[in-house]
């Protein structure tokens, strides 16, 4: 026993330390740092912007993955937590900036826990009564909740959300990490090796891209640890068979509530980051369709799979925006910039079809999670039954030829 355990540890250590792996990680890091700068240098300003949006979607998708992918609870109102995080953070940020301006850029680090906790608390408040519901009822209740949050924000309760006009109000701004002055000092680095007019410009989008990448890495780290934790195993057990999990001592309500509130927490952080990135929030950004897109991201990538969430975000958020951006900038030879709007319009139509086709053809997603793939499938038993029946029929027929005539 002891020997095999050391073996595993040794293998794990070896796997972690392979020079090839380290090289790949370094390459990835360099790629993430340099790619937006290069695109910026070529004047394709929209690319870093899209990359930042993809990053936001990765965060959202990973957060929802905890709820849908790990715990198997379909949440169709996830965007509500995104909205609550954004609004709570922005409102507290504005308040702090008014009352304690000496905090300066540190206000951001106050806003993050506020956004996260506000979203998580809402998750618990909503989750406590509704998590007893069956799968599709839960989907509808969360959908209703998402709409309620949006409608309440639009109706400007107690004058704090500024209604459809959105936040921040005139003259206010949303505090950012390290302060705005850092942003205003755009860095210009000419690189003659890449062409005469090649100048690296360090702007808003790139700044936020870096912040979002850092947050994404944190999310990936946390989500991975969660998946492999005791809690993650309880989620998997619960998703596969609630009754069996419960009889093995998994507390159903508590485990589901953890999934719900942790998912909400990441939604809240992503929401605040979105508000910061846009420097503006309004209820329009938090429609039901946004919830659907986050679900799509997970479904396309593969439920419960972290690389899947990234691939899904690139396909759902990145690809159409990239083609649209290229066409709008006139960078696609032979395609009229007017086509850009057409592409933008058709994207939802295509997504709808894509979801249907995906469910029929590859319901497990493009990059399915390994643990999910190993699940027991009740249909397989049925197929086995049918097969054994056919086998029985065949043997029977062979034993009694002509019995049917």
């Amino acid at each position, binding site marked *: 026993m002891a020997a095999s355990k050391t073996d595993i540890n040794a293998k794990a250590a070896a796997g972690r330390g392979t020079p090839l792996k380290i090289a790949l990680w370094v390459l990835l890091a360099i790629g993430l740092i340099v790619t937006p700068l290069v695109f910026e240098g070529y004047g394709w300003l929209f690319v870093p912007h899209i990359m930042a949006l993809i990053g936001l979607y990765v965060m959202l998708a990973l957060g929802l993955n905890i709820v849908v992918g790990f715990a198997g609870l379909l949440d169709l109102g996830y965007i509500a937590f995104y909205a609550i995080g954004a609004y709570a953070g922005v409102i507290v940020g504005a308040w702090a900036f008014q009352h304690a301006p000496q905090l300066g850029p540190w206000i951001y680090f106050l806003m993050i826990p506020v956004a996260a906790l506000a979203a998580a608390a809402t998750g618990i408040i909503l989750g406590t009564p*509704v998590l007893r519901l069956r799968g599709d009822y839960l989907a509808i209740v969360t959908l209703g909740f998402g*709409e309620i949050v949006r*409608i309440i924000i639009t109706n400007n309760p107690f004058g704090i959300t500024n209604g459809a006009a959105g936040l921040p109000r005139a003259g206010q701004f949303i505090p950012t990490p390290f302060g705005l002055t850092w942003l205003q000092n755009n860095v210009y680095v000419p690189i003659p090796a890449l062409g005469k007019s090649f100048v690296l410009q360090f702007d808003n989008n790139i700044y936020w891209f870096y912040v979002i990448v850092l947050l994404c890495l944190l999310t990936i780290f946390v989500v991975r640890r969660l998946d492999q934790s005791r809690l993650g195993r309880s989620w998997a057990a619960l998703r596969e068979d609630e009754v069996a999990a419960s009889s093995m001592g998994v507390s159903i309500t508590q485990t589901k509530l953890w999934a719900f509130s942790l998912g909400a927490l990441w939604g809240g952080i992503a929401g605040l980051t979105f508000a910061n990135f846009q420097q503006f929030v309004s209820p329009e950004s938090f429609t039901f369709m946004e919830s659907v897109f986050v679900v799509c991201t997970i479904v396309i990538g593969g439920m419960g799979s972290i690389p899947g969430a990234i691939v899904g975000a690139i396909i759902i958020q990145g690809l159409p925006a990239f083609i649209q951006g290229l066409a709008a900038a006139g960078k696609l030879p032979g395609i009229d910039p007017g086509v850009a709007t057409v592409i933008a319009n*058709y994207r939802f139509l295509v*997504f709808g079809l894509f979801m*249907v086709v995906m469910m029929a053809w590859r319901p497990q997603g493009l990059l399915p999670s390994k643990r999910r793939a190993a699940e027991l499938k009740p249909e397989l038993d049925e197929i086995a039954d049918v097969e054994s029946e056919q086998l029985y029929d065949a043997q029977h027929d062979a034993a009694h030829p002509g019995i049917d005539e």
Partner: protein
Amino acid sequence: MVLTNLILAQLVNGITLGSMYALIALGYTLVYGILLLINFAHSELFMSGAFVGLGMMTVLTSSAVASKFPWFAAAQHFFVTPGLGVVCMLLIVLLVSMIVVGCMGMLIERFAYRPLRHAPRLAPLISAVGVSLFLQNAVLLWISPQQLPFPNPIGQGTAFTIGTVDVSVLKVVIVVTVIALMVVLDTFIAHSRVGKAMRATSQDREAAGLMGIDINASIMLAFFIGPALGAVAGIFNGMYYGSIVFNMGFLPGMKAFTAAVLGGIGNLRGAMMGGFVLGIAEALASGFISTGYKDVIAFAILILVLIFRPGGLLGESVVEKV
């Protein structure tokens, strides 16, 4: 006196609204009763019904069509004459829309849901959301992104007056038609052979199949009747509000689903009752609380019902099978 009049006026509005919700709710309940599937695309079928209805109405009454096909002018003249003509025109519009949308429903079942009948529960739900997204954007792209005016051939006449509240002919027509359709549906499901087959399918699909019932036919029929009723609701909705738009289905769809849950999903009479209760609650709420929050009320009712009485008001308590 003013208060009673306000209550009365809102009650009349509520019953009209409720009759439309009830009609849509029947579609959800029929499909759920048989397949245990929330047909998310149902609200989009309701919307498509309104658009098909608008198209038919335009064909039957617009002068542009008459100038192209002179032989059609006489028929058009008949269709715009008040009385019998308008009634015939409305009947044709309703029938065509019901058939077209019913066929759309069957197509959706065939291509989006049937391949997933043995898939995990989330799969058809996601597929349904996909169909809904597709239909909405198809109408947005290929018909119109704007609100389109919807004619009201019945006019603004008053049928009768209760107290000081005028009840328009349109409202009477809507409520009477809806109730008539409900009676027909209820009789059909309760007494006809096909209705019996559908009930058997919803009770136990496999056993029904073993008893020689064509399950697929029963399911297809549910997917025809539900959307066809939704189409009628769509046309009435257009006439009632005077305009239609590609995303008009979402809110009424959600509310109708609430109505279906309220009455006990899978229970036809429950859905009818739930529709009326929800319509009246919403009308009273928008009269007495705030119009801005009237949509919140429906969702709040939905959440409360699901928490406290998940089986609905008329439904049995659902026990999860192991």
